[in-house]
Structures are given as structure tokens and as C-alpha cells.
């Protein structure tokens, strides 16, 4: 869009500056409210948001959708396939696994582990990475060099390989050990994004103006830099969330993620892969749910990125 036009719309048509004109009844707009307006009209956002809300409800209250215990085994139903007639939302809708457990129930209950891992890892990496990136970017100098090198060291460790090593150190594994392993290794990406963002914002005149007023470090960081630097971090974090869910599934598949007793998509995919030819439905349903969930989060991240980047408008 040409520069002239931008300026014109920025002008917002106030009448002569000196004349006290009644303020127009327009609502104050900010980057966030603009982004929200954009998002509401974006079908990609609407679809992914509905999916995610649904998944969160499933994760929180799987009992609402099925009354079957996912651990209830009936060997008589061993590898029983998908029924030929309509059994929507019934226990045998997706068939049964090796121990005759309802795959439908397991898929619903498995959502909890995946969502918890995804959300918690994202929170951990955003806070940890954001903090490191902020401090490195703001203070610069040797402090930045030190933190950046540290980030590089962690960045060099492949997420999964590193997680395998960390998780092997635990004898007793749970959802939280997986969160810890992924969080400790995943923050580097966020730290880099945050640092770059802070470096840009730090140069802005309004930060200099605050310094010239005598504002302290805390005020400058929290009021001036953080609100202006956080947008790209949110975008990357949303996209990464999908990746963490996939990583959890991969670790569980490899047998070092969640303990086999935990109901999770990763564990079920792991046990399903051995019978892919004789009973493909055992593998198919948890995999499909995993794909849909990861896709939903990545789509959400994409939509948020587009909305927060005014240049793409």
C-alpha cells in the first residue's frame, strides 16, 4: 500500500487541531483489537479455534462424551474392527485394540495427556525463553554474548534426541517429566525470537524517550519493550505448540515418553504400529486425532501471525 494512503488513514480525520471538537464516538483501536477484527473474519482461524476449543473440552471432561472406561479390557473383543453399521458415539465406533479396550474411549481420554503436554511445554518455553531473550536483548554486551552462546549450545541439541537423553535419566516417568524434558530443550527458539524482537524495539524512540524521562529498567522493560516485542513470540509459541504435542507422541511411541499405563495417543500409536496390516484401525484413529490437533494449533498460529503482522494486511 502506498505510503500516502497509510498516512491518510493514520490521520483519522480530526478537524483542526486547535478547535475543541467533540470526540467522535469511535472506539480506541490498538494492534490487538485490529488483530481480533481480522481474526474473526478469517475462516482458518474460526475453524482452528472451534477445533481447539472442542479438544480442550474433551481433554478436560472426556466423561461427557463416553461412559466407557478406557482401561476396561474385554479380550473377547480383541482387535474387533470398525462396525459395519452406524454406531456413532458408541463404545465400538472406532473398534477395539489388542486387549479389547474401546479405541473411541481411549482416543477421548488420550487427549488430556497431549493437551497438557502441549500447553504446559509452551508455557514453560515462552516464560523461560522470553525471559532469557529479554535479558540478553536488553542488556546486550557480554551478558548477551553469554546468554546467546548458552542458547546456541542448547539449540544445537536436537529436541527429540535431547529429550530421550533427559527422560532416560528418570526412572519414574509421568506427564510432568515429559513437560520438563521438552521445556528444558525447547526454549531456545523462543529466546532467539524474543531477543531479536527486543533488539528492534529497544532502538525505538519511545524507549529512548522513557529513558530520557528517567524511567528505571523495570518500567522500560515491562511497559515499553515487552508489550511491543511480545507479538512475534506469541506467534512462534502457538505454532510450536503443535510441534510439542507431536514430540510427546513421538517420545511415547519410542517408549520413553509417558509410561505405558497412561492413556495417550503416543502410546496407542506405538502399540498400533505392530498390527498395521491386520488391524489398521488401531493405529489410524489415534494418529488421525494427533494430526488434527497438531494441524489445528499450527493453523491457529498461522492465522495469528497474519493478523499481528500489519504488513500482510
Amino acid at each position: 500500500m502506498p505510503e500516502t494512503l497509510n498516512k491518510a488513514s493514520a490521520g483519522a480525520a480530526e478537524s483542526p487541531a486547535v478547535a475543541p471538537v467533540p470526540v467522535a464516538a469511535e472506539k480506541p483501536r490498538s494492534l490487538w483489537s485490529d488483530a481480533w477484527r481480522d481474526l474473526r473474519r478469517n475462516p482458518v482461524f474460526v475453524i482452528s479455534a472451534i477445533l481447539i476449543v472442542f479438544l480442550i473440552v474433551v481433554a478436560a471432561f472426556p466423561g461427557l462424551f463416553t461412559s466407557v472406561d478406557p482401561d476396561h479390557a474385554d479380550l473377547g473383543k480383541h482387535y474387533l474392527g470398525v462396525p459395519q453399521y452406524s454406531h456413532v458415539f458408541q463404545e465400538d465406533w472406532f473398534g477395539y485394540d489388542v486387549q479389547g479396550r474401546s479405541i473411541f474411549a481411549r482416543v477421548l481420554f488420550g487427549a488430556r495427556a497431549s493437551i497438557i503436554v502441549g500447553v504446559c511445554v509452551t508455557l514453560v518455553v515462552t516464560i523461560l525463553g522470553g525471559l532469557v531473550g529479554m535479558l540478553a536483548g536488553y542488556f546486550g554486551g557480554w551478558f548477551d554474548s553469554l546468554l546467546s552462546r548458552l542458547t546456541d549450545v542448547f539449540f544445537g541439541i536436537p529436541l527429540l534426541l535431547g529429550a530421550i537423553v533427559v527422560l532416560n535419566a528418570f526412572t519414574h516417568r509421568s506427564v510432568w517429566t515429559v513437560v520438563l524434558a521438552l521445556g528444558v530443550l525447547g526454549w531456545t527458539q523462543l529466546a532467539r525470537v524474543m531477543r531479536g524482537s527486543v533488539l528492534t524495539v529497544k532502538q525505538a524512540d519511545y524507549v529512548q524517550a522513557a529513558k530520557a524521562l528517567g524511567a528505571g529498567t523495570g518500567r522500560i522493560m515491562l511497559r515499553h519493550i515487552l508489550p511491543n516485542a511480545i507479538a512475534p513470540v506469541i506467534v512462534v509459541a502457538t505454532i510450536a505448540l503443535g510441534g510439542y504435542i507431536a514430540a510427546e507422541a513421538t517420545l511415547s511411541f519410542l517408549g520413553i515418553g509417558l509410561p505405558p499405563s497412561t492413556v495417550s495417543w503416543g502410546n496407542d500409536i506405538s502399540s498400533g504400529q505392530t498390527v498395521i496390516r491386520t488391524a489398521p484401525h488401531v493405529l489410524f484413529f489415534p494418529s488421525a486425532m494427533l494430526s488434527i490437533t497438531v494441524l489445528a494449533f499450527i493453523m491457529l498460529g498461522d492465522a495469528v501471525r497474519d493478523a499481528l503482522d500489519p504488513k500482510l494486511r
Partner: protein
Amino acid sequence: MTIIEESATVPAPRSGDDKGGPLLEVRDLHVEFHTRDGVAKAVNGVNYSVNAGETLAVLGESGSGKSVTAQAIMGILDMPPGKIPQGEILFRGQDMLKMSAEERRAIRGRKIAMIFQDALSALNPVLSVGYQLGEMFRVHQGLSKKDAKAKAIELMDRVKIPAAAARVTDYPHQFSGGMRQRIMIAMALALEPDLIIADEPTTALDVTVQAQVMDLLAELQSEFNMGLILITHDLGVVADVADKIAVMYAGRIVEQAPVHEIYKRPAHPYTKGLLESIPRLDHKGQELFAIKGLPPNLMKIPSGCAFNPRCTMAQDVCRTDVPVLHQVTEQDGTDLVGRGSACHFWKETIHG
């Protein structure tokens, strides 16, 4: 009082044929931008013309539509969101808006070239300037790499870049701002176009360098007998180089005049206000004259004359009727050649 009908191009004679007519003629050009907040009317019926060897200065503030008009002429307008609902852009009598993309491409760069304000972002940072200059010859004239390089050095010599042969392999960032602007000029000149559009060519430069670049541009223009459209907001630069001036406000031409006339006797209150707001020696210590208010929002252009909310002379008629570009005359009624003013009270402004 002569009123010139709105559709007519003022004061330049209308002419559609190939010979004798103006090099470029813009007729009743409109440009709109469709954004999610509404339609911004950036250009609302612009008429102007340039002859070979002539310099037309288009003067205006940000949002006046001066750059958008130039982009429409070059065919580099982003469409969408831009849209040209009506108007004609005649290059040697042919309407470029009706041409095929292929035909337009043949004109762009070869017949009409453009110089941008920001030379650093207009040049590709990863290619040497010699390569970028030579590219014009390789693509348009099919020269070999070696010949193209020789041509590039020749061009750099022509725009007075010292040690051209040695610097031809340098990259844009290795040149200073003034030198980069020279390279931009060299690129525009490469195919010896008939018309150059310079969009704020010296705004980013320092005054001492600005003088060098403007001199160079003027010299090359007379050497090649090119038409030049100089888009600027600087009244000083205009006075130095222009032959005639078109003052734009809110997407319209509000005043048109030969350069010597307009500074002495502006015929539009906006032009008058701009000239009066320049700090003058004899006004030191006093308040500067300031045009009150702000340039209009292009989504909500005031009715009637767009300048009326800021104008000291505004009457009721200014709020209702859009003024056409009136032929400006002497007090005794003789036409002032080439002068037009889109003000209901042009007589009072110029003679009052």
C-alpha cells in the same frame, strides 16, 4: 471569466496526435484504494501534461496524491487495493491504460523511467551496481556480458561517479547516499527514455549533495531533451529547476502555473499559505503564518472544495460546490498563459 469545462485539460492545448502534442498527458485520472476501512480516494480527476525537454514540478504534501499519480503513470500501482475507475494517461497520444500488459512493459523503463526517493531500497543489495546497470542492456538490447559492463561504466561516468571503472563491481551499500542516487539516475537513463519521473529524488540527501544531484539531473535532461516530472514537497527545489508547477491537494490539482508566476502571485489560497509559511528574514521573531488544521482524510474528503475547512477565505459556496480549474486572467481580463486555479475566489486571491 472563462470557465474551462472539467473534462478539458487546462491550459495545454488538447492534442491526440503523435506529433506536436505533449509527450505525456494525464486526463481526468482517478485512483481509489479499497481498504477494509473504506474507499480512499487518492486521486480525483488530475489533468496535466509534459512536453519534451520540459520540467513539470508536482508539488504537494503527503496524501495529496502526487506519488499515486506517478505510480499510475508508471503502471506500478498495487492493484488491488488500487483501482483506476476513470481517466486516461496518454503517452505520445496513446492511452496507456488501454494497452496490454505487454505493450506497457515495452514503454516502462524504455520510454518512461522512474527515480525513487530511497535509492538504497530500490537497488538490489546482493548484486553489484555494474551488474544491475548492465542488466538493462542485457535484457532490453541483448548485449553480451562484456559489452554490458562497458556500457555500465560509460553510464557511471556520465553521472559523474569518480573512478567508475574501479567501482563498477562494488555493491550498493559501498556507495554514499548521493552516489547511490546517481546510480539510480544512471539506471533510469540507461535506455535513454523520453520521460523521467523523479519521486522526491533528493529528499533523503543532504543539501550540499542535493544541489549536486539536482544539477546533474537538469544537465542530463537538457542533453537528452527529456521530459521530467519532478514530484516534491520542497518549494525551494521547485523554484530551482521547474518550468511549470502543478500544486496538488487531496487528489486534485488546485493550481497550475509557470514557475516564475506562482511564487510572485499565487492564485489559490493553499499555494499562498504554503508560500507564506516559509520562514522569512523580515518575519523573524514573529509568528510564522501557518495553514490551520490538517490535510484531509482521503476517506472523508470535505464536500465542495477539499481545502475549505483550512481556508481563510472560505464562504458557503466553497462548502457546497467543487471549484473547477478556472483560467486565471489579469485584472483587465487578458489570459495568463498556462495558469489555472481551482478556487471560487481566485480573483480575490491573486488580485485582492
